[in-house]
């Protein structure tokens, strides 16, 4: 047990699983770095250093740098998964899904169903998402609602270092295709994380706090923001339950419904674009199943229906903030 950043937690999860199982390979653009170059090898370990150190330990046969050809190498990862490896492919930014989505949603996700149950595709796609680093419209999106929409995929959104490690190990051991979302603004966030391997099961929500007045359901980085808002609200006598579903697919519907019923007041926080996103998904779930218990309209806190802007002030205004969450909770609590 020691304090680890999310970056370290993910790195450790990969290293542990690669040690445990020779079929686990990782691949991606500059996942090690310096391929074919005259200088330092393992020069980057991915653009934000998350996979650094894996290549020196496991060699270039299991840590595969790739050309910029996401369809080819994500597809190769899918094909390798269906034939005996357990690949962890890095799609550098989830924003790049548009050049390789077919291999994920029509191939990996559907093999098992199309083939009548006769395929096993233990593929993990790790990918960066989220706004906050002035990366502008094509490098700041969330897009997990799109993956959640697709039957056959599992979708994971860790909210802290502890969660990241346990969920990634689970993802690697899982026999279905998993899309693992890492928020690019969170890599440096630290907490106590066990040194050994452990798993966190999919589809089991985590309650980061329990309260009586309002239930907040939040995803990924928004779990942290929800907790910050809840801290402040606590002082004013509004006590919140915060539900971190951990995975959007499978979704722990039971816990969400139960927690919605307990307070009868719900705020959902989603960093993804507002249309057909997780906020609407959870709202609809609750309304269909816990309607009788609701005391107030369910409020959604999301960005506006716009691309992510570059300028820092605009981007700040875009992202759901603890302040906006707080305001929404106050409104729902008073309704």
């Amino acid at each position, binding site marked *: 047990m020691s304090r680890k950043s999310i970056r370290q937690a993910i790195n450790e999860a990969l290293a542990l699983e690669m040690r445990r199982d020779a079929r686990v390979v990782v691949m991606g653009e500059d996942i090690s770095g310096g391929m074919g170059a005259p200088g330092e090898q393992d020069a980057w370990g991915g653009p934000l250093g998350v996979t650094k150190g894996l290549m020196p330990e496991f060699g270039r046969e299991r840590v595969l740098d790739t*050309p910029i050809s996401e369809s080819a190498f994500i597809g190769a990862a899918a094909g390798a998964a269906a034939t*005996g490896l357990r690949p962890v492919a890095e799609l550098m930014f989830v924003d790049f899904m548009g050049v390789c989505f077919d291999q994920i949603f029509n191939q990996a996700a559907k093999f098992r169903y199309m083939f*009548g149950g006769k395929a096993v595709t233990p593929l993990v796609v790790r990918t960066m998402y989220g706004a906050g680093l002035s990366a502008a419209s094509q490098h700041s999106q969330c897009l997990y609602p799109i993956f959640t929409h697709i039957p056959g995929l599992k979708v994971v959104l860790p909210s802290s270092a502890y969660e990241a490690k346990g969920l990634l190990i689970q993802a690697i051991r899982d026999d279905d295709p998993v899309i693992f979302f890492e928020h690019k603004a969170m890599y440096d966030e630290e907490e106590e994380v066990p040194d050994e391997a452990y798993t966190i099961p999919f589809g089991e929500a985590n309650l980061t706090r329990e309260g009586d007045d309002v239930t907040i359901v939040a995803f990924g980085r928004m779990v942290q923001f929800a907790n910050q808002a809840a801290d402040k609200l606590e002082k004013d006598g509004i006590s919140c339950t915060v539900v971190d579903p951990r995975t959007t697919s499978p979704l722990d519907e039971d816990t969400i419904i139960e927690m919605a019923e307990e307070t009868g007041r719900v705020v959902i926080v989603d960093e993804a674009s507002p249309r057909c996103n997780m906020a609407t998904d959870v709202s609809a779930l609750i309304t269909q199943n816990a309607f009788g218990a609701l005391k107030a309209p369910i409020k959604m806190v999301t960005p506006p229906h716009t691309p992510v802007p570059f300028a820092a002030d605009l981007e700040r205004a875009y992202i759901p903030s603890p302040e906006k969450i707080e305001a929404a909770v106050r409104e729902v609590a008073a309704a």
Partner: protein
Amino acid sequence: MQLNREELLKAYRDMRLIREFEERVHTEFAAGGISGSVHLYAGEEASAVGFCMNLTEVDHIASTHRGHGHSIAKGCDVKGMMGEIFGRSNGLCGGKGGSMHIADLEIGMMGANGIVGAGPPLICGAALTAKTLKTGGVAIAFVGDGGSNQGTTLESYNLAKVWNLPVIFVIEDNGYADTTASSWSVGGSQTKRAEGFGLPGYRVDGHDFFAVHKVAREVIGRARAGEGPSLVHARLTRYYGHFEGDGTTYRAAGESDKARAERDCLDIFRRRVTEAALLENDQLDAIDREVLGLIDEATAEAKAAPAPAIEQLFTDVYLSY
């Protein structure tokens, strides 16, 4: 010609089996027993068989929407295939996939595919598995002339090259992608494209089993020896429409009849082996009868098989969820 008698008989039987299968699907589709999109491989048999004869179960292939021939050549059970095309519970995929999704991963058949150009990336993955786990296996992606223009295919040439994968890309150029002539849609040439990515590129007459088998043996041997990927451009003819129901008005009058009369792979094969006294006509006729019987049975069994149970709708999405 280094094939022994047994191999020659197998080659002929596989080609005949594909042909008979496709002819039957054609008839049954016309009779209304089959729904959905069905793309027949009749006329192209020498390609699938010429390549797959050189493979074993450690090897993988990825197919296209026109997948029946590759499936049979790789060893898929024809009864399971027929059941699948009829959408029955005895189908290879339990009726959930249909013609465009026939697969059998256990014998290295990674699936027909509804997405043009989806096979090449997947086959790079199978090749990576073979390389990483040192299975000795090779991997072949069959690609249409139309599919050769898809970026996913072109990227895969490069990935296979830089990862030095045991992959062969077989461009089955039947002259058309839907209605569109490959002479129009393919800029440059298939073999020059291969060379552009550093892959050796070969041309072969896809009607001629022996020609295909020879080049297949060479490129597969090279891949198996760790010498990397290649591309083969096979010219061949599809006898029927793009899909069942296509009027093929875009073709020249009599185009496919002419090919059937003059360049049929089964005829060429029979002539060659009987003239060289490698096999007797009787032997081949016996295979024709045996195959016909098998297709009769497969069809009867498919028709008799029950539809999948409705609960099957919900299964096989995930292993656990």
